[in-house]
């Protein structure tokens, strides 16, 4: 029995000490704390790492120029493992710790959605660079996102497929998560409205499926003139390779998630000719983008992907809001919502009344192992 008591005492001590440790006395004024909540371990760690790298880069540049009115920006990163429970715990922690003025996060829609009620109730900005769940920003006025929702990108892709590439017998493969579902739905809606017919719509479970041969074999039978793939680059790499293996020769179109050099490394020749939309590509001659790409390459030895790019802009926009509003959480939210025509590496960005953005997109194509502007 004694052991039980000791263990319960131990537990209570732990709870109390963690209570004390999270209530830190923060020195006001000289440092501004922004939290980054993203997956730093687990299946999606690469995206969280991209965020962190880009944000650290941008913060360094801002601090070197004296920070925000003399106060230095400090980033603290929190690992949500792309999990809803972790995300809500982190959200609660950040809401309670008053030194954080805003949160950049989360990456995935599941954690972003799960944590939203906590941030909303606690009055802390949750600015997600990538969350695309259609109902995310309707969870509350503190929810912001910096990516075209698939509700925006899907129709753009539909137009590219039918009007630009002149295809009308389309097969679709999509990843069965909220992002993939919305992309597929909106793409199909637009494509059909423009007169194309969809001959196949095949889902797969992301992270688990590596073998696409049954789906590709089925699609080959149907003889489409375009294959639309709504998936992340790693899944698409596999699809491209296997399509080649099965001698499925058909033009391929995908969304901005394909904008990653690793796709070309993985799929090699199979990636030639693939079309994609994007709001960021490293060879963009725009001077802001060039500068960003160079700095990133210098610091990290690799080219930034569009996740890094959008995180970079997310931080930039947040800092702009802080410059205007100071460190009050609500004031920052209000200032952020007012931002119009922010010039960043992912184009000119403005928030609409739902705190969503509409960014212009370009069409790219993979030629000779490089991403170039598609014509």
């Amino acid at each position, binding site marked *: 029995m004694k052991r*039980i008591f000791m263990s*319960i005492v131990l537990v209570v001590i*732990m*709870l109390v000490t963690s209570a004390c440790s999270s209530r830190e006395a923060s020195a006001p004024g000289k440092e501004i704390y922004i939290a980054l909540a993203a997956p730093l371990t687990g299946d999606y760690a690469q995206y969280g790492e991209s965020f962190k790298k880009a944000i650290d880069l941008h913060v360094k540049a801002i601090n070197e120029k004296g920070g925000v009115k003399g106060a230095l920006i400090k980033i603290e990163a*929190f690992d949500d493992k792309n999990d809803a429970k972790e995300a809500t715990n982190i959200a609660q922690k950040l809401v309670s710790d008053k030194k954080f003025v805003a949160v950049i996060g989360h990456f995935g829609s599941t954690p972003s959605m799960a944590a939203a009620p906590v941030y909303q109730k606690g009055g802390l900005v949750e600015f997600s660079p990538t969350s695309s769940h259609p109902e995310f920003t309707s969870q509350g006025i503190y929810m912001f996102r910096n990516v075209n929702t698939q509700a925006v990108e899907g129709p753009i892709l539909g137009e590219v497929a039918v009007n630009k590439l002149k295809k009308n017998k389309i097969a679709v493969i999509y990843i069965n998560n909220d992002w993939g*579902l919305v992309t597929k739905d909106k793409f199909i809606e637009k494509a059909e409205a423009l007169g194309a017919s969809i001959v196949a719509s095949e889902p797969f479970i992301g992270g688990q499926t590596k073998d696409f041969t049954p789906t590709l074999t089925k699609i080959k039978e149907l003889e489409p003139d375009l294959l639309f793939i709504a998936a992340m680059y790693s899944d698409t790499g596999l699809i491209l390779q296997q399509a080649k293996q099965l001698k499925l020769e058909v033009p391929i179109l995908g969304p901005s998630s394909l904008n990653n050099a690793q796709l070309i490394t993985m799929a090699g020749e199979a990636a030639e000719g693939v079309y994609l939309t994007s709001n960021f590509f490293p060879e963009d001659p725009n001077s802001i983008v060039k500068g960003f790409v160079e700095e990133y390459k210098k610091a990290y030895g690799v080219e930034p992907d569009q996740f890094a790019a959008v995180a970079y802009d997310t931080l930039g926009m947040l800092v702009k809001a802080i410059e205007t509003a100071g460190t009050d959480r609500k004031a920052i939210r209000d200032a952020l919502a007012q931002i119009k025509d922010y010039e960043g590496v992912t184009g000119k960005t403005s928030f609409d009344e739902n705190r969503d953005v509409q960014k212009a997109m370009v069409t790219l194509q993979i030629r000779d192992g490089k991403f170039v502007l598609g014509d």
Partner: protein
Amino acid sequence: MNKLVILLLFLIIILLPFLGIGDYILRIAIMAGIYIILASSLNLVTGIAGQVSLGHAAFYGIGAYTSALLSLKLGVSFWGAMVAAALVAGVMGFVIGLPSLRLKGGYLVITTLGFNEIVRLILINWDSLTRGPMGLPGIPAPSMFGRAFQSNVPYYYLILALAAITLFIIYSILNSRIGRNLLAIREDDVAAEAMGINPSRYKVTAFVIGAVLAGIAGSFYAHFVSYIDPQSFSFDESVTILSMVVLGGMGSMAGAILGAVLMVALPELLRFLVQYRMLIYGLVLVVMMLVRPMGILGKVPFDLNFVLGAKRPDRTRERGAG
């Protein structure tokens, strides 16, 4: 002296929300409460009845989805939804338990694991019912006396009550004829059968009760976090719950509680080690098993070799495979 400590602990637990600990710690406490229910219910199945289940998260998920869907689509109140969740989880426990519990050891583990995955895949793919990966947002908070729960505080007291009821139920079972029969089956089910105890009936009973309790925890969870999706109820979650039971000490009720609290609190305390957290978690499992395999509060000597039919050194008779 002991009585004073007990009283003090009791007071701390009852008055926790008012001790100035803040919302964050209160949330951790609430999560701990949920996992206490999950770990204890699994303990009933695994530690006491001796049936290793890696599918507990499936019942958790079934409870959560049942409760959420009833509230969202049919406007059922939380209380009704929770009862329904418990029932549905229980029925599923019966359906799965009846055929599976005839299997031994390793085979049972795989079956429960397979079941867990199947449930998760159904949740993802049957999107006309569950909205698939889009999840269910906006699950309403429970209401009492006409007012919905506004802060974490009422949730805390609710989970405290649910956990207390759960522990009471399990304690009563342990000390009843059912409990004694389960332990007999655990030790040697062939001998128990020879003595007239029907192992299948008791194993399934324990399994169903475990499922019901997990379903209740699921219902609470859904109405606490207000957004659920299939991702939260995977095999990983079952592993987590099983680890809590093993860490704390299988067969020991206090052990299940301790395991749950530790594994909810530790990751929060280890947060400063962000990048290495999962790695350390794995290390903790391995090291614990090496240093103290009976679990922190497990009973000495650790007698549970029955679980996978391992041979005990002082026995001379053979066991069947697994």
